């Protein structure tokens, strides 16, 4: 048959595209599905999508060695990045580690596989207060990985002992007179949440006027805020670029390791607590390996190694017996009961989320 040149061009293009896509999927060697998984069963390599620098260096090699498979790791730096990739579908990963509210969103959107809890016997290791979280009742779709708080890292060498309060970043009398500057997270919910805590309001408010008050506070604080930064705030604090930084507990503690004159404080007005949880994507290519990996992380010794490496508290009761008591008794890592009573989870506010982003952008730029 004689093809016209016109068609020939098109055919070439289509073939080239098809070949490239075929090449793209050559890695995925088998079909996912709802097959029942046995404890310890693996059905291929593990494709892990996790926060940057969020596992101890031994965890992945140990898992690879024990099960004779490979782990492909990719990283994200925010829940939003994860949600953007996953909600469109076809992300291609097995295990992801979203935070509480992101778990809830992903469950609602149907992005997560319902866990086969029989395949994860080590679920029994979880602390009682982590077995039925509000964001995912009964851990039906997710298993807590680590938890932590969002508070303030302070250069106490320079400032001396200060009150643990959001006044350090919001009060003109305090923050405005600091010999240096402040950094806030580059995150609408966390920053406005901090302002809401400081005002004694609900950090998950959906009241326009309450949110506006918080935004005004953040806008006022812009004057002494050097940066809105979610990645390098701990380095900026340690290097002296800023003297107070808003951020996550473990990141500060890791950066402070071996240094004098720095402290992590949970403000007394209240602060955010969060849980990052392991979950399996609905279209995961290797669901059984994924279950086995989650079970592996839940082992007591793995949980202990994780916490000792990155200074975030473990939701794993069995692991606590193995964790260095110095860490276990450090209130900066494991908040006291009194502090815990003041901690709040951030929840998805649905349609109101866009207001948080809008007001944050208005206040910060």
């Amino acid at each position, binding site marked *: 048959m004689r093809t016209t*040149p016109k068609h020939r*061009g098109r055919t070439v293009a289509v073939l080239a595209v098809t070949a490239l896509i075929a090449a793209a999927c050559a890695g995925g060697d088998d079909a996912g599905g709802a097959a029942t998984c046995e404890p310890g069963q693996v059905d291929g390599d593990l494709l892990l999508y996790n926060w940057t620098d969020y596992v101890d260096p031994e965890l992945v090699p140990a898992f690879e060695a024990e099960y004779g498979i490979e782990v492909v790791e990719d990283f994200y730096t925010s829940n939003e990045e994860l949600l953007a990739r996953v*909600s469109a579908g076809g992300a291609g990963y097995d295990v992801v580690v979203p935070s509480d509210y992101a778990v809830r969103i992903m469950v609602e959107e149907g992005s997560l596989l319902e866990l086969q809890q029989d395949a994860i016997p080590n679920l029994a290791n979880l602390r009682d207060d982590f077995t039925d979280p509000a964001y995912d009742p009964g851990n039906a779709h997710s298993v807590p990985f680590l938890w932590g708080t969002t508070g303030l890292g302070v250069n106490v060498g320079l400032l001396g002992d200060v009150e643990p309060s959001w006044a350090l970043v919001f009060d003109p009398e305090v923050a405005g007179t600091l010999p240096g500057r402040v950094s806030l997270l580059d995150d609408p919910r966390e920053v406005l949440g901090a302002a809401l805590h400081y005002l004694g309001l609900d950090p998950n408010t959906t009241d326009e006027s309450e949110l506006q008050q918080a935004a005004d506070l953040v806008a006022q604080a812009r004057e002494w805020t*050097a*940066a809105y930064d979610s990645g390098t705030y701990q380095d900026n604090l340690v290097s002296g670029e800023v003297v107070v930084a808003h951020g996550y507990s473990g990141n500060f503690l890791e950066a402070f390791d071996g240094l004098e004159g720095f402290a992590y404080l949970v403000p007394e007005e209240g602060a955010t607590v969060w849980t990052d949880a392991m979950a399996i994507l609905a279209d995961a290519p290797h669901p059984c390996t994924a279950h086995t990996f989650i079970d592996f992380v839940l082992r007591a010794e793995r949980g202990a190694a994780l916490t000792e490496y990155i200074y975030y508290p473990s939701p794993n009761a069995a692991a606590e017996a193995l964790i260095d008591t110095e860490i276990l008794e450090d209130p900066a890592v494991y908040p006291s009961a009194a502090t815990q009573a003041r901690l709040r989870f951030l929840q998805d506010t649905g349609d109101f989320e866009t207001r948080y*982003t809008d007001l944050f952008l208005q206040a910060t*730029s």
Partner: protein
Amino acid sequence: MRATAPGGAPAALRSDLPRDGESPERAAARLAARRGALIALPPIATMTLLFVIPLAIVAVYSFATRGRTGRTVLGDWNIAAYARLGEPLVLEVVGRSLGYAVLTTAICLVIGYPFAYWLTTRPMRVRAVMIVLVMLPFWSNLLVRTYAWRVLLASDGPIPAAFAALGLGELRLLFTPFAVVLGLVYGYLPFMVLPLYAALERLDLRLVEAARDLGASGWEAFRHVTWPLSRPGVVAGSVLVMVPTFGAYVTPELLGGSRTTLVGSFVVRQFLSARDWPFGSALSMAILLLMLVATVVYFRLQEDRA
């Protein structure tokens, strides 16, 4: 790729001999038209699949609704996202981005023009090496170069340290608008220098000499001969600098500490923080239109003046 050559299908083309009664000119034009379209086919097919269709998808999304969880609901079509484009916040961000883009372009021109001119006055061999030297940093990663400025500008970095050592007190540079403009100028200066250099090098210097011989001062010769003749380079360079700086994302984030929200970061936030894809899509369409109109007007104005 054979398909890219004008003779990609010689057999088919040779059969295109003049038809009966057709003038040779018409036949040649018809042949050229067919050949041109034929050569354009592979790129058109590629661009259709990888650009036109995706653009259409985004256009469709811009009329959709943000679902409660942030997933876009296709259906329930509306123009709410476009209605939001008039909000003060949006106008402020767009205005600021335009300001930064114009400022960056102006600075690049002020630095780049004499620099490019100086390059053309170097001896041929030296000139060749120098052009490579201008290009060399440009070939390393933009991110890495921006990061290097972060190191340089940090409070404990070399520049503020030198400043303090000279007894000039504490200097804060990182996370300031100055740092953003500096980073943008640094990142896009080669885009300005190279077209300028190309235009200036091609300049027929006998014209300048003639002007001087006729008694024009150096400044007059520049004003009336060199500058007008190099204007195509100025136009090309300005567009090459202005367009990417308008949508810049990495530099304001790394050097500005996100204190200066420009359009690039604003759009990113709509897609990520707010998970409002319809609004992000509408913004994207608006920006595309704005840039299109701006560059077309700019080119027209320059053509009219030339």
